[in-house]
């Protein structure tokens, strides 16, 4: 078992365990903070896969941005006086059964399919290639995402902010 394997299993364990805590924890703040560890674990896996820039972006966007936004959501939706950050669960048994079936299908499809792989190396740094692809092949999607972000910005601002006076 090489160092590479050990690092993979370490990050995989971190990801899965903290993912379970996100879903099962009664306290929503614990959920949010274990989501942090999930994001870090996935970033580590990205590094193992040779996607260095994606790993950094994962930490920058998910941990630095989306998780903060989620924590703001937690703070904005607490009851003021009585501490009611504990939340319940519903339909645990049917949900578990349905997801078990789905997971069986998903995993068997993943394991038994003959995936086509190429032994070629990914480049040492992916940043340069990513920049080139964004501005050439995927330029239309890139501009459309700009418009999507604009819509999201204006929409979220006007939904969240009540008109003053």
């Amino acid at each position: 078992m090489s160092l590479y394997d050990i690092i993979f299993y370490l990050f995989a364990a971190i990801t899965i365990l903290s993912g379970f805590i996100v879903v099962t924890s009664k306290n929503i703040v614990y959920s949010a903070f274990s989501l942090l560890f999930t994001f870090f674990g996935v970033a580590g896996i990205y590094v193992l896969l040779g996607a260095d820039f994606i790993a950094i972006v994962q930490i920058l966007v998910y941990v630095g941005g989306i998780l903060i936004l989620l924590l703001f959501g937690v703070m904005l939706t607490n009851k003021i006086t009585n501490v009611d950050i504990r939340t319940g669960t519903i339909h645990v048994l049917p949900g578990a059964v349905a997801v078990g079936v789905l997971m069986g299908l998903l995993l068997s499809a993943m394991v038994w399919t003959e995936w086509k792989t190429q032994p070629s190396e990914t480049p040492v740094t992916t940043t340069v290639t990513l920049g080139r692809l964004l501005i050439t092949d995927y330029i239309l999607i890139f501009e459309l995402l700009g418009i999507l972000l604009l819509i999201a910005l204006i929409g979220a601002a006007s939904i969240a902010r009540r008109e003053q006076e």
Partner: protein
Amino acid sequence: MVTNYIPIFLVLLAASIFGAAVVFSSRIFGPLRPNKVKIMPYESGKDPIGTTNERISIKYYLVAMLFIVFDIEVIYVYPWAVEFKKLFAQYGLFAFVPMFIFLVVLELGFVYIFMKGGLRWD
């Protein structure tokens, strides 16, 4: 290739061990004799007013949301900027205009919120 990242993993490991040691060693080794004055938020000084459990204002959410949008902007600009010299040599102005349009579109949203007074901190 992954061997390049071993120092980062080691730093991560050392930092988490050090952090855990700092947090938990005082709990393990120190004597624990709390009394009413000691467990007050400000042991010497003012008495606290109200609860800490109040909801925060919506204004902070708007700032966090603006931050996310410009965070996303950075992840697109960065790889483009790294490759810009070669792209400019190859495509000329067409390496520059798409990013300019992208940035202008995003700034439009910012200007809109600014003009609507969404960032007024009254």
